[in-house]
């Protein structure tokens, strides 16, 4: 190995080693500490006992606290539930759009595809903000429905779980549509023809040919929605109610409001094992399957 080769390997290796991998060790270490009012606001790992010998402070107290307090367990479960429901909605809305675009002739296809991607390039925060104006008590939806005489009193739409689902589906819909589209364009039209020649109705053709063949696209798109949704902070913070528990929001509040760095670290560590590790394992399984 020449020194030049070693240097080229070293640059990305060192950068990611220091700024991506090392932080997790710091995170693990602080999750074992105790919160104190000082700078920094946690107990040091090493200390001097009164007799001068070296002492190590490390306790699993924070993890026991997470286990015992129902708040955290509920937050984990409710994050999974919210992410799952949003992913299903995104699939139901995204699939017809992806299917339609994949069947459309050029240049209509390119234009529609561009229209799906376009909102992604504008600010994420402002797209969530747009829904605040829509869902408020005197927002666009309530005003329209009331002036049409459909409802008498404004509906409570903001600060609900429904608003969170809408926000997540809206934000991540392009991530669902694009892999589905990529998959559906590869679908051989001859298969559909064959199915209809053999007497299958459009619905049967769809259920027995198109849908099973597009399964890899469905899995890829669902992962791209589910993964960011589960750790989401901004959407539940702006659109959700005080009772919309999500683990990203709990971690944020633990850090910024309670200023309890050790508990926030413990929440993050548990999240790494319960959320990130299974997702990475699932992805590596999927990649290996694609290679074969």
């Amino acid at each position: 190995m020449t020194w030049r080769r070693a240097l080229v390997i070293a640059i990305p290796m060192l950068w990611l080693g220091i700024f991506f991998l090392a932080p997790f060790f710091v995170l693990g270490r602080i999750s074992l500490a105790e919160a104190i009012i000082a700078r920094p606001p946690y107990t040091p790992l090493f200390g001097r006992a009164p007799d001068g010998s070296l002492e190590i402070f490390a306790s699993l107290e924070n993890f026991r606290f997470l286990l015992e307090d129902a708040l955290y367990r509920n937050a984990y479960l409710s994050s999974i539930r919210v992410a799952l429901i949003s992913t299903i909605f995104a699939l139901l809305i995204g699939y017809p759009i992806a299917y339609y675009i994949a069947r459309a002739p050029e240049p209509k296809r390119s234009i529609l595809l561009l229209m799906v991607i376009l909102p992604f390039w504008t600010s994420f925060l402002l797209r969530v903000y747009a829904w605040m104006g829509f869902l408020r008590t005197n927002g666009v939806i309530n005003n329209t429905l009331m002036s049409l005489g459909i409802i008498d009193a404004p509906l409570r739409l903001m600060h609900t779980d429904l608003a969170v689902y809408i926000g997540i589906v809206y934000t991540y819909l392009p991530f669902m549509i694009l892999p589905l589209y990529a998959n559906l364009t590869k679908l051989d039209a001859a298969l559909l023809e064959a199915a209809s020649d053999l007497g299958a109705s459009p619905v049967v053709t769809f259920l027995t040919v198109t849908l099973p063949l597009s399964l890899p696209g469905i899995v890829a798109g669902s992962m791209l929605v589910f993964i960011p949704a589960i750790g989401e902070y901004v959407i539940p913070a702006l659109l959700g109610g005080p009772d919309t528990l999500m683990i990203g929001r709990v971690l944020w509040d633990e850090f910024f409001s309670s200023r309890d760095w050790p508990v926030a670290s413990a929440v993050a560590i548990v999240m790494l094992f319960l959320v990130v590790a299974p997702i990475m394992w699932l992805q590596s399984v999927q990649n290996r399957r694609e290679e074969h």
Partner: protein
Amino acid sequence: MRGWFLPMAVALGFIFLYAPIISLVVFSFNDSRLVTVWGGFSTRWYGELLRDRQILGSAWISLQVAFWSANLAVIVGTLGAFVLTRFGGFTGRLLLTGMITAPLVMPEVITGLSLLLLFVSMELTLGWPAGRGLTTIIIAHTTFCAAFVAVIAQSRLRQMDESLEEAARDLGAGPVRVFFDITLPVIAPALVAGWLLAFTLSLDDLVIASFVSGPGASTLPMVIFSKVRLGVSPDVNALATIIIGFVLVAVIIAGWMMRRAARKSA
């Protein structure tokens, strides 16, 4: 999926995608402070926005952060992708693969918190970085954006015809020259795409920046978030309209340039 069902579902889908954006733009020209009640046409919120020093200052910080993060992310991400596609086996290959793909699935709150804790510990033990601000945000953004650049660069490097590089080597070019004269020009479009994606991701990030920034270095999303948290405010609508305008113009120019390039090569 034939007949009326499909077009209708698609039309509703696009209404869902665009109605909030259109209403955002319309109400930015609303004279009333009540964002969703029409009080006549006015551009007063644009004037107010341009006089808002906090928003302008944070926009400048965000642009600086995005520019430097995108530059650094392209360097780190491209080198990482190059090493993984061209260097064959080496010690730590698996580790690098993991470190370059993991940021893609890492929840932002974890990335933000763990980097902040790293910066705090480094300051305590090494004295660097002294305090937090622009530098720490740039480092944090570079790290997560590099993963996205690496994905794009890796797929381009895999598609690329390696016989071009072999030919250059056979003709006596050293590895550095092969990289700069052959590989880099061929993958350049992918790197431009990666740079733009990194720039956008950095400009858009609220969560990671909130963790790793310090006093005096608020990015634009941080300022918008603190405003929006208190409720809707019409100058945010004006800001959104300006950003949407920029994006539209950029997309139209990019589309026009791609069409011209396609015509030239045809």
